[in-house]
């Protein structure tokens, strides 16, 4: 196969790499006595789009939750912008979190707030000096970016799955993150809408020059968005490479994703 099989636990630590923004070293995590991650090591560089592929239950979502400190690993270290997430206090962790955008699988819009209020909530919280007028301008621009200018006064329950994802994306991008984490951004969407969301991810990534980690099992999404792909199997990295390299793989398990 052309995509390299992962060399477990062999992360190169010889030179500090300034372009490195996320580094996960030998991550282990268990839930309810089941070990979900079994020594995963990942590196993401500035401006890179990394896709993490794997079947359901392979530990993909847990992996990105470790990056924002929603889940702490049992073993191993997570470095974001050079900071060890496990060692940060709550206040410092929140300073790092502001630089990280996280799009949840369900979009996780606050269902008691309108779309406008959903976008205004994090913006006002972190920019207390902004006037209402300025907040309105930023929100309109964010909605314009995702093509949903008319949805501002709608409640989340009135939005379709694709619209919810777009609004979730707008809410995440409103704080100008340097890293975007996408948890299955196209799950539950029809093929056309999934393609639109994937293209939107690439468009926004290029426009805002941000790095992304995209968790998915949607190969169409991976093909559009990935600079590099890491494949997880049973909580371990099974294969790694560019889309074309992995697509040409002879390995049966890897081939099962591309067939």
């Amino acid at each position: 196969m052309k995509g390299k099989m992962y060399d477990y636990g062999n992360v190169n630590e010889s030179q500090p790499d300034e372009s490195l923004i996320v580094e996960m070293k030998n991550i282990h995590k268990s839930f309810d006595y089941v070990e979900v991650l079994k020594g995963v090591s990942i590196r993401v560089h500035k401006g890179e789009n990394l896709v993490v592929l794997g079947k359901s239950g392979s530990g993909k979502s847990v992996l990105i939750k470790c990056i924002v400190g929603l889940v702490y690993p049992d073993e191993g270290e997570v470095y974001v912008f050079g900071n060890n997430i496990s060692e940060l206090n709550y206040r410092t962790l929140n300073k790092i979190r502001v630089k990280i955008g996280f799009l949840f699988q369900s979009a996780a819009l606050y269902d008691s707030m309108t779309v406008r209020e959903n976008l205004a909530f994090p913006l006002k919280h972190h920019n207390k000096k902004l006037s209402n007028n300025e907040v309105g301008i930023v929100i309109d621009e964010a909605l314009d970016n995702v093509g949903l200018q008319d949805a501002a006064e709608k409640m989340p329950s009135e939005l379709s799955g694709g619209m919810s994802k777009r609004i979730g994306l707008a809410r995440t991008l409103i704080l100008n993150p340097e890293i975007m984490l996408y948890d299955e951004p196209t799950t539950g969407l029809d093929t056309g809408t999934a393609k639109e969301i994937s293209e939107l991810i690439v468009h926004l990534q290029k426009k805002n020059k941000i790095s992304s980690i995209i968790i998915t099992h949607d190969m169409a999404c991976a093909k559009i968005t990935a600079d590099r792909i890491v494949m997880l199997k049973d909580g371990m990295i099974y294969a790694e490479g560019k889309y074309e390299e992995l697509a040409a793989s002879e390995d049966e398990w890897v081939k099962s994703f591309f067939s």
Partner: protein
Amino acid sequence: MKTIEHQKTFEEPGYLKKIFTGTGDFIYFTSRFFKEVLKPPYFLKETIRQCFQIGYKSLPLVAVTAFIIGLVLTLQSRPSLVQFGAESLLPGMISVSIIREIGPVITAIICAGKIGSAIGAELGSMRVTEQIEAMEVSAINPYKYLVVTRVLATTCMIPLLIVFTDAIGLYGSYTAMNIHSDIGLQRFFSEALNHLGFATGIIGCYKGYNAKGGTESVGRAANAAVVSASLAIFVIDMIVVQITDFL
């Protein structure tokens, strides 16, 4: 290709261990309130919104219940007192019953049902739909925004509802003009303010905030919030009655 097997062996915790862990979690959750409530930001707007939701929107239910209880209590007590020629004691007895016991406990129980379940279900639903995590990753403290605001609102609003219940209950028993109570307003407030409202709020928040699993956990959280809060109200009431009698 190399593969690594890291399957660890674990022991299932015992029932007692689960009880201790749960108690420890609840104590930590409650103590966190006192730590967070003093630190900015204060989310005043959300606290006022919760006060409106919890206080104002509970008024009709509390009023109807209080009126009926006052009326029924008077009707049922009167025949017994008349037999002993002690009808003149009726207003005082009803007043003491309503103000000291029935008003606070009934209001707290109604609030545990209405408000505790609503908080448990709302936070449980936010947990399973990842809204709490979304708040967390946006660097907004969800405990402060969701828990502190609601517990403050219940702690402030339930005593006011109790006063309202007492007034309506007394009106219902036609004794409002003949109160002969030996309980001071300050003592009444300290009892209600410190215990019943706080217990309803913190238990509802704890059950909802820590909901785990799918949508069925929302129902479980709401149910657990009502049951636990109701039980806590009776226990607190029993303790407070013992303490006030001792004093």
